[in-house]
């Protein structure tokens, strides 16, 4: 998604007054066109994320349209107090961009994974998270990020959409695949391999697949189609490449209860860290956590077999 994001920022820089882009020394072979476009307004703030975020708060306080870029783990964890005190406590519209959410950096190791990014950030006042799932989402996701009047976190990942498949336009909620056999909700790029796995299955024997792209969840914002799918099948699995605590699954369970939506069987499949103490690709970590498409579809089937 990075190349698409770069092109999108290049376009946005023409439209937004006071556009400034800060990077924590990341973006090699990705952000060069933006650097060349922005000149002095593209600032490599170096390996100093705490300073970078506070500088962004100062820029935003002066009315500048400020983006802060790093890989996801360095974007939220190292400068968390700066995000809390300097950005969120002042309600400033700083756009934090974390590339490679979840296990996206795979075998690079645990320090490079972001398994609790949006959960920890969403605990802060006014924070929003925007999580595109596919490359084709990026332009609209960046537009929506820029439209936020307060702090926002854009979590980018690797597009895994099946070749030739075109997703519906990016919104908070999208039904990616219709189905009658349960409901499966995926956060972000995790949806891609599931789309691929479902394409060959007939509608009556596959779950309905929804992509969740914006957090936090608000009770009144659950789409009617999603509620109808859940109430019809009464089986719901939520999958996310993020730890369970503070994740979308917990949030959704609460919103469904508040909304009076009846769910017969519910399961939240989340990142579990490193249960074996071994490391590998993003796909390998997903499998270890039951977040691969095959395991997730098995979970839906297992819940259905237990009855709703």
């Amino acid at each position, binding site marked *: 998604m990075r190349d698409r994001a770069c092109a999108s920022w290049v376009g946005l820089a023409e439209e937004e007054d006071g556009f400034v882009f800060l990077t924590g020394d990341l973006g090699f072979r990705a952000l060069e066109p933006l650097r060349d476009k922005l000149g002095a307004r593209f600032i490599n703030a170096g390996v100093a994320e705490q300073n970078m975020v506070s500088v962004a708060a100062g820029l935003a*306080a002066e009315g500048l349209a400020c983006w802060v870029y790093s890989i996801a783990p360095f974007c939220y964890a190292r400068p968390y107090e700066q995000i809390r*005190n300097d950005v969120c406590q002042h309600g400033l519209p700083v756009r934090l961009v974390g590339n490679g959410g979840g296990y996206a950096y795979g075998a690079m190791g645990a320090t490079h994974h972001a398994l609790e990014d949006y959960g920890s950030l969403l605990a802060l006042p006014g924070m929003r998270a925007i999580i595109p799932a596919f490359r084709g989402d990026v332009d609209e996701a960046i537009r929506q990020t820029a439209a936020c009047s307060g702090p926002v976190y854009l979590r980018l990942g690797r597009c895994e959409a099946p070749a030739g498949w075109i997703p519906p336009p990016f919104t908070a909620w999208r039904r990616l695949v219709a189905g009658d056999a349960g409901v499966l909700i995926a956060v972000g790029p995790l949806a891609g391999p599931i789309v691929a796995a479902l394409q060959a299955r007939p509608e009556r024997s596959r779950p309905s697949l929804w992509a969740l792209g914006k957090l936090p969840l608000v009770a009144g914002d659950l789409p009617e189609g999603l509620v109808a799918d859940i109430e019809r099948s009464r089986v719901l699995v939520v999958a996310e490449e993020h730890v369970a605590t503070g994740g979308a699954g917990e949030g959704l369970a609460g919103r469904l209860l508040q909304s009076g939506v009846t769910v017969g069987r519910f399961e939240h499949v989340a990142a579990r860290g490193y249960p074996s103490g071994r490391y590998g690709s993003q796909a390998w970590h997903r499998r270890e956590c039951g977040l691969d498409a095959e395991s997730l579809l098995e979970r839906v089937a297992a819940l259905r077999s237990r009855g709703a």
Partner: protein
Amino acid sequence: MNSSDPTIDSAERARAARLRLLRMHHAAGVGHIGGNLSALDALLVLHHNVLRPEDRFILAKGHAAGALYVTLWSVGELRDEELDTFHADGSKLSGHPSAGWTQGIPFATGSLGHGLPVSAGLALARKLEGRPGRVYCLCSDGEWQAGSNWEALIFAARQALEALVILVDVNGLQGFGSTAEVGGIANLAERFDAFGVPAVRCDGHDPVALEAALADPTPGPRAVLLETVKGKGVSFMEDRLEWHYLPLDDALLAQACAEVERS
């Protein structure tokens, strides 16, 4: 009654502010008095004689909130009865500054190592947008144990932030020891110079020297190391570690005020 009347000389102004600060802390039953008294003279000169409407001030050493509130009172931006709410339930005047209620406090501070990076952002905005104005940031000396300050210093030098003026209240004492014992923060001027930010030393209690150093038109980033005394103006507090935290009782308040009035 505050001392915003321009006919009042700086010594009288400082005396009035010191007395108000002591009484405010005594009424609230709170400490941090030593570091407030060391910073007070610089805050008064900065706000009365140096700051222009386009300038900004960030109190990185947020535990000197009382000195900032009294300074804002001294320039007529806060009323006397507002100071009476310091530390009280429902007050805007929290123990460390909260933002959003006066232009004089653009950012909430209190966690050390935040004020300078935020100030760097304000200064960068002035550079990028071609806007006038300086950004003054007052740090403590113990605060230079925080890595984020050094990140900001590197950034300020690299970005040539001409609007940025860094003040350091070098009173030599911090929460649980001297800055030399705890952090070995000696030769701060040389350290700043090594990072590409020239630093000058200044008597932090001399209003003439302070005004000259703070209003100096030399472009930043530059630093002014304020040589100060923790607890300045009250003999039993001066250069005493315990007055980082201790509150005043009635007898000590009377003694302190008598000393300040005689000064």
